[in-house]
């Protein structure tokens, strides 16, 4: 509810960017009594049961849980890529019925369009919207800078490393100015070092671009480092076990990993996920 208030206050706030980029739209996700059942003639599998979740405007929420707990399914339902069996998902008060540009998504696998250059990938969404060339160019310039890949503007995805590809995927989603950014284990396939760099970069981007993020991971450390709030899910059927506020400031450096608050939360989450 608080989040709703925040949204109405900040809705029309213009951005004061120097790059000629428009104001970032704001949004709030409301998931109510969501259920997902896979049913065939012979079997019935309940993937998600009775999920209730609110995500506030510009909030960074992470869902953690063991594999098979339905966290990816939940995200895909919010994205509109999967259908729900019962309940509802709403974005800014409007019910979600299919995929749409206001819910940008970053997948675990590499989903850059291989026939488009890095710049063209970033401009894909804006181009669909009919944003004129010059404005599009300004957008892609801005985001190339944000992800620090300006020298690779003309490169094709196959020339990039895994981490670079995911950076472009994030930029591509953000350049479309979505109300929320949905991230499905985006760093799951990366090596440990790259993963840490990507987490820092993502926080920086979130700080700069101010957008709502719903992030899926099974990595507790990643969840605590990135998010303001953590939703823990359990399996069989997939459901929410508990929600944690992360007792850390929004501006974080890698050193927060050594803070006692961080470690305590890590221990608690670890205990919870053991079962």
């Amino acid at each position, binding site marked *: 509810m608080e989040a709703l208030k925040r949204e109405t206050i900040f809705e029309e706030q213009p951005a004061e960017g120097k790059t000629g980029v428009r104001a970032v739209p704001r949004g709030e996700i409301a998931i109510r009594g969501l259920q997902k059942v896979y049913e065939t003639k012979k079997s019935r599998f309940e993937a998600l049961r009775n999920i209730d979740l609110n995500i506030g405007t510009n909030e960074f929420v992470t869902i953690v849980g063991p594999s098979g707990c339905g966290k990816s399914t939940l995200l895909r339902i919010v994205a509109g*890529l999967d259908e729900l069996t019962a309940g509802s998902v709403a974005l800014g008060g409007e019910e979600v019925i299919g995929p749409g540009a206001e819910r940008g*998504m970053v*997948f675990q696998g590499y*989903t850059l*369009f291989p*026939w488009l250059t890095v710049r063209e990938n970033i401009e894909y969404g804006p181009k*669909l919207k009919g944003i004129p060339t010059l404005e599009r160019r300004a957008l892609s310039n801005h985001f190339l800078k944000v992800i620090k890949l300006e020298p690779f503007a003309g490169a094709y995805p*196959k020339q990039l490393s895994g981490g670079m590809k995911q950076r472009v995927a994030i930029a591509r989603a953000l350049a479309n100015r979505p109300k929320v950014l949905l991230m499905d284990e985006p760093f799951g396939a990366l090596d440990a070092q790259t993963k840490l760099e990507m987490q820092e970069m993502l926080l920086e981007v979130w700080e700069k671009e101010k957008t709502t993020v719903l992030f899926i991971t099974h990595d507790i450390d990643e969840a605590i480092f990135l998010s303001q709030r953590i939703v823990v899910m359990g399996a069989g059927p997939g459901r929410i076990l508990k929600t944690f506020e992360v007792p850390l400031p929004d501006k974080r450096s890698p050193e927060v990993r050594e803070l006692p608050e961080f470690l305590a939360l890590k221990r608690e989450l670890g205990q919870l996920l053991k079962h």
Partner: protein
Amino acid sequence: MSTTSLTKASRKRPNRLQIFKEIGGRPFAMTASFSFVLLLGIWAALSYTEAVDPIFLPTPGEVVVEMVRLLGTSEYWNHIGISVFRVSAGFLLACIIGIPLGIFAGTFKYGEAFVEPPMEFIRYMPAVAFIPLIMVWAGIGEWAKILLIFIGCFFQLALMVADITRRVSHDLLQASFTLGAGRWKAIETVLIPAIQPQLMNTLRLILGWAWTYLVVAELVAVNSGLGYAIMKAQRFLNTDQIFVGIIVIGLLGLISDRIFAFLNRRLFPWA
């Protein structure tokens, strides 16, 4: 080579035949030319020694002389011209109808249901068996040959395009949806670009078949074309001319194939 027993194992050259291992451009080219030379050598050995009756197997020298002579006549170039025309016409017609139909069948399940079962049925009917029917329908004019090449290519092409389309990464498609693409935009901006490199390879393959059907088409009731030239040579037991005809068709196929390969590299540097 004198080596101590200690380092012998490590100094031993690894076997050149490693599974899937890349070899350089030079070894590849040299092996390829060796293979040609070997083929030519066997042919030369069999023909010059007259191990095979010269009436059945001409010598490479005779074939080259005959080839130079034939390629010096305008009549032979007319044969080549009309054959190229027939292949191109039949192939293009198959592309114009087959590619969109294949994309349609590969994109929508209803399309698949509508297009594929009947096509799967027809594609195993030998195109050659259609010749009598084609002659009834289209007579023995140009259309008959074009139609036979078309039938030989069209069904396979449409089914292969459908298959390529179906195999486009669903993740890419979903990414486009989350970026705001609707159905038609997704077809235009994801499916069609995604299938292009493989489509070119398929076209290369199908074009090869088109040349095969051309010869079949020209064996029947024609008085022009390379197939006809081969048939005529057979009637007079001019085996050297048969060889020339086959080699010319092979070269034409090779040229068209190389053009496709070149276009593929130029048009799709991202693949």
